[in-house]
């Protein structure tokens, strides 16, 4: 085999062309791709680190927020508890006021009812006392008692105050006056004359007098002169005691 320089040189040129082609169309692009991928990886890494930093920051913020929220919650809860306590206190105070008011109201009403009951009892007591005394006196009334009361009547008539004497005198001035004298037991003629004499003296003239017996008086007398009545009997004394008759004491 012969050595051919031309072929050798052409082979070398061919080899160099191949190397050039490989370098420019295969090796360089691969290098570029590798460089780009490396840059991409670095960028991703940087981004990841940034995200991680942001996440850490967010985490810190969240933890801070959680802590703050927890504090706020505690404060709100404390506020709520305080408000509830205040409200409860107010409601309790209101309820206490109402209870006290109701208790006071009940007390007032009970006292009033008690007073009313006492008053009724007192009235009943007095009424029964009068009923008893009336029954008792009806049995005890006698002409002797009547005579004693007559003596007292005369004594009181003679001892009449000037004012009362004037009142009776004025009452007798009325024309056609009819004087009525009632007694529980029949009055004898002497006593009738005595009373007629006395009243005529007071009037200064003779007066027509009607004498009647009225056993309701129990014992004693009732003299009606015009618009005045002179009471000297046991029935009216009991009425005066119960307050059902208005009177003035004649001797005073």
């Amino acid at each position, binding site marked *: 085999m012969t050595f051919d320089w031309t072929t050798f040189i052409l082979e070398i040129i061919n080899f160099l062309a191949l190397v050039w082609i490989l370098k420019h169309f295969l090796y360089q692009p691969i290098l570029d791709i590798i460089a780009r991928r490396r840059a991409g990886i670095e960028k991703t890494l940087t981004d990841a680190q940034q995200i991680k930093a942001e996440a850490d920051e967010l985490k810190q913020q969240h933890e801070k927020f959680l802590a703050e929220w927890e504090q706020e919650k505690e404060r709100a809860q404390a506020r709520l508890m305080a408000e509830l306590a205040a409200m409860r206190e107010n409601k309790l105070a209101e309820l206490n006021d109402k209870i006290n*008011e109701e208790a006071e109201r009940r007390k007032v009403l009970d006292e009033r009812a008690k007073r009313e009951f006492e008053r009724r009892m007192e009235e009943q007591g007095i009424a029964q006392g009068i009923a008893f005394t009336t029954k008792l006196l009806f049995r005890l009334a006698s002409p002797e008692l009547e005579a004693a009361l007559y003596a*007292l009547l005369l004594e009181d008539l003679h001892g009449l105050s000037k004012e009362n004497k004037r009142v009776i005198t004025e009452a007798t001035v009325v024309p056609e006056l009819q004087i009525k004298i009632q007694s529980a037991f029949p009055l004898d003629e002497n006593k009738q004359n005595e009373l007629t004499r006395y009243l005529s003296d007071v009037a200064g003239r003779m007066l027509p007098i009607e004498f009647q017996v009225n056993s309701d008086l129990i014992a004693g007398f009732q003299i*009606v002169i015009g618009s005045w009545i*002179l009471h000297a009997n046991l029935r009216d004394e009991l009425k005066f005691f119960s307050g059902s008759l208005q009177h003035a004491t004649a001797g005073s």
Partner: protein
Amino acid sequence: MSNSLFDRQADWLARYQYGLRLSEQGNVVSIGDGIAWISGLPSARMEDVVHLEDGSRALVFHLARDRVGAILLRQTSQLTAGTAVFLTGKRLSIGVGRALLGRVIDPLGIPLDDAGPIQFDIYRLLDVRSPPIIARDFVAQPLYTGNKIIDTMIPVGKGQRQLIIGDNGTGKSSLAIDAVINQRDKNVYCVYVLIGQKRSTVVNTIEILRRNQALSNTVLVVAEANAMPGLKYLAPFAGCAVAEAWMAEGYDTLVVYDDLSTHARSYRELSLLLRRPPGREAYPGDIFFLHSRLLERSTRLSSKQGGGSMTALPIIETEQGEIASYIPTNLISITDGQIYLDQQLFARGFLPAIDVTRSVSRIGGNAQHPNIKKEAGRMKLDYLQFLELEVFTRFGSRLEPTMEARIRRGQILREILKQELLTPLTIEFQMAWLVAYNEGMFDHLELDQIKPCLQYLQEQIARTRLSIEEGHEQWRILVRTWLNEMGRA
């Protein structure tokens, strides 16, 4: 010294001595028209009770130089000139207490029904001083009348004095009877005073109350038209004393004076018979004092005084709607508000014929339940504006759609406010229709659909346990549900 009866008697006994005593005796000079002229009795005082020899009773009412004028309270056939008259030194009193519930009495406490005699434990003076201001509390609790207009727009509080005023035949008494019926399950004792009414009216009132189970917590004080003028004059004071006794025991009471114009006329008659000089419109000058003294006794007592209350519904009759005449003017100024019933509204079929424009409750708003007050809110004002707007529609002029809507709502409200006689309504029903109206739930309805709708609401209210204490939202949901159910049915 204690003021007990025993102590007074003990004091009397300590000074007691048997002796001659003087007392007065008068004589009847003349009798006529329920008046007795009596000579003598120089110690007689005004309003002393005097006993007459024949068993009659009278009340000293006029003091002249030489004689006493007395109004007869009880007159026997034996009463003639010359009959002896005795002073009792006592003022007129009436038996009071729970024994009166369900009874019909005259102003002296004598039963007029056939339920037998009444056993009284307590007697109370007919004329006493009204409670002092320190014994009173604010009017703060509502007294429901069962009437839609009153309970929402002219509310009445316990202890208030609310005048019912209007012409003859406008439904004043019915309104008051409704209010009495509405108290039957509310622990409020009622006193219905009938002054100078015809017997048929009295019987009718008793029957209505009995039919509606309201007689058991009511007492009727009756002085019929043919009663002696003295009894007609005393009737409101007797009713007031009965209610006052319950108030003093801590109960809530309602007293109706039906009516005070007749009372004023009776008092005028008595005064003229007693030859007192007449004043304005021939009424005696003290008629104002008389009525104010009567109505001042209505109040709400403080808890220190037992906490009872007396609400008064005086009725007054006007002539031709004239509210500026003497007696109506007096009573309007004495009371805390008035419910005005209008003849024209009555004639147009708007029942009860309450004229909202002229009716007012000066203190009732304070007593209204907050939820009702909130719902009723501007209703009165809106209704008054509607009445004004409605006048324009009479001229046939075209209106803006918003105006038309307002008029329509007003017409619906007017339809809602109509109420049958003797049908007092619960406050829960009032709440329901108020919520429904305010939420516009009636807006799409025709006017003739309102009544059945309200009827349905009322039926549902009877079944629910929701109270007016619940908030607006709960009521809104419930009422809407009912109305939807009704729409589907």
